[in-house]
């Protein structure tokens, strides 16, 4: 019970500190009403007026796709370098683990801002950011997957005189492949949402269009774009779920 009261006091203090009034939303609801008034009806002509919105959607999808693909491949490679049962050289292993830990904690904001400067504001910057983010998010998971693989078959394969690479190819990879692909599909789902956010900081795509529309106060465009974003995310999520079920379900049945 004391924990509860501590939390309540903390919340109260926090609200005072940030001038946050929890009921503020309801008390100042007229702002929301005004905004909704300006935002409806949504202007779907953004799609046809100039091709930039439709193109932007393609851009976001592309950068999420490539970011996941490249990031996933790099994450797998680094994971093999970081796993204790596939990398016997301690120096390489520790370096790989350090890189993965570092990429995991680096704030995504820093990454996008760096790339915007390094390669210019573009979808390319957004894609590079997603590559780094994907390695950060999944590198450690993949390493654990590799290390948790059934060991006995590996022992048998070594016993026939196979090399380490052959053991990896015939024992480890068959065991992790379905889960690996399922995770990459999941990564695509996560990355598409991130890609939208990155667009706002210069990463291109539909996020950029959203920010643009908002800054020139074209709220009807904003609504249209937001609804398109929602549709895009839902579609990607459904596809990702379907493919994942097909792969994992098949894995279980197999």
């Amino acid at each position, binding site marked *: 019970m004391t924990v509860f009261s501590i939390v309540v006091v903390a919340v109260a203090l926090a609200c005072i500190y940030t001038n946050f009034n929890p009921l503020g939303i309801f008390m100042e609801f007229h702002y929301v009403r005004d905004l909704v008034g300006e935002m409806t009806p949504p202007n779907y002509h953004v799609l046809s007026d100039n091709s930039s919105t439709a193109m932007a959607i393609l851009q976001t999808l592309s950068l999420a796709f490539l970011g996941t693909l490249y990031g996933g491949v790099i994450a797998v490679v680094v994971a093999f370098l970081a796993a204790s049962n596939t990398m016997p050289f301690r120096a390489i292993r520790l370096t790989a683990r350090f890189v993965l830990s570092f990429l995991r904690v680096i704030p995504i904001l820093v990454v996008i801002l760096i790339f915007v400067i390094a390669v210019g504001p573009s979808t390319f910057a957004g894609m590079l950011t997603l590559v780094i983010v994907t390695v950060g998010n999944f590198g450690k998971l993949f390493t654990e997957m590799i290390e948790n693989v059934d060991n006995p078959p590996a022992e*048998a394969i070594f016993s026939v*005189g196979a090399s380490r690479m052959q053991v990896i190819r015939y024992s480890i990879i068959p065991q992790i492949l379905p889960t690996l692909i399922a995770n990459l599909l999941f990564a695509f789902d996560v990355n598409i949402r991130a890609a939208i956010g990155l667009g706002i900081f210069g990463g291109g795509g539909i996020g950029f269009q959203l920010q643009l529309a908002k800054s020139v106060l074209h709220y009807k465009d904003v609504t249209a774009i937001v609804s398109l974003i929602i549709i895009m995310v839902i579609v990607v999520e459904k596809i990702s779920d379907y493919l994942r079920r097909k792969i994992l379900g098949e894995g279980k049945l*197999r």
Partner: protein
Amino acid sequence: MLEVKNLTKTLPNGRRLLDGISFKVKKGEFVGILGSSGAGKTLTLRCLNGLLKPDSGSVIIRDEHDRPLDICKINKRELRRVRQKIGVIFQGYHLVKRLSALENVMIGKLGQINTFRSLFYGFTDTEAEQALKALDKVKMSELAGSMTGNLSGGEMQRVAIARAIFQSPTLLLADEPISNLDPSNAKTIMKMIKPLSEHMPVIGVFHQPEMTAKYCSRVIAIKEGKIIYDGDPKLSNKRLEEIYGEELELIEQQEHLLAAIAK
């Protein structure tokens, strides 16, 4: 021919796990190694293909040029070469469950196949045909395409034997190959292993003296790291008690079970 000389392995606290194990095995022999748990049988077997390195002693095998090689002393590359010709069957089968039975058999020759080719291309059709013949010998050719994870224990062990056969080995090792199987499957496996001893020495670790009595040509008993018996597989009750001590009752139960199945 295999010659084991004076294997020793001592724990840091002084206890001797292996204390001067020595024996010779040649083609035509099916040797069963018996002993109570912890006596040192599995350790001995694992020294024979280099999975374990003893503190001292040698395991001498002859390579394809008939030169003697000491497994305990050769380097990694030579060990890999030697292992190509040593077949191993494990208690837990040690198959890759996600691959088909046929693929598991073909894995047996990985040591003998060019690494690059095995990584990127896989196995040739010729190799697949030969693997199928190996599966035929263990009566598993119908299930060649099924995923190994779906097979029963007895079927998996037969695939493991096919994998060993496929290697065309000069020595076959078996680490408690029937301990996970029911008595009827155990009999089938023993019946498949025995004929292999005509072409190469077969050394197996067993927990089932009634099985070794029936199928092996020779029995070596190990107690507390030392060989206490080496000879006729049919053991008297007095011998069995020497080897196993209190575990004798368990064995008698198994004997009854086996007799019941044989009927």
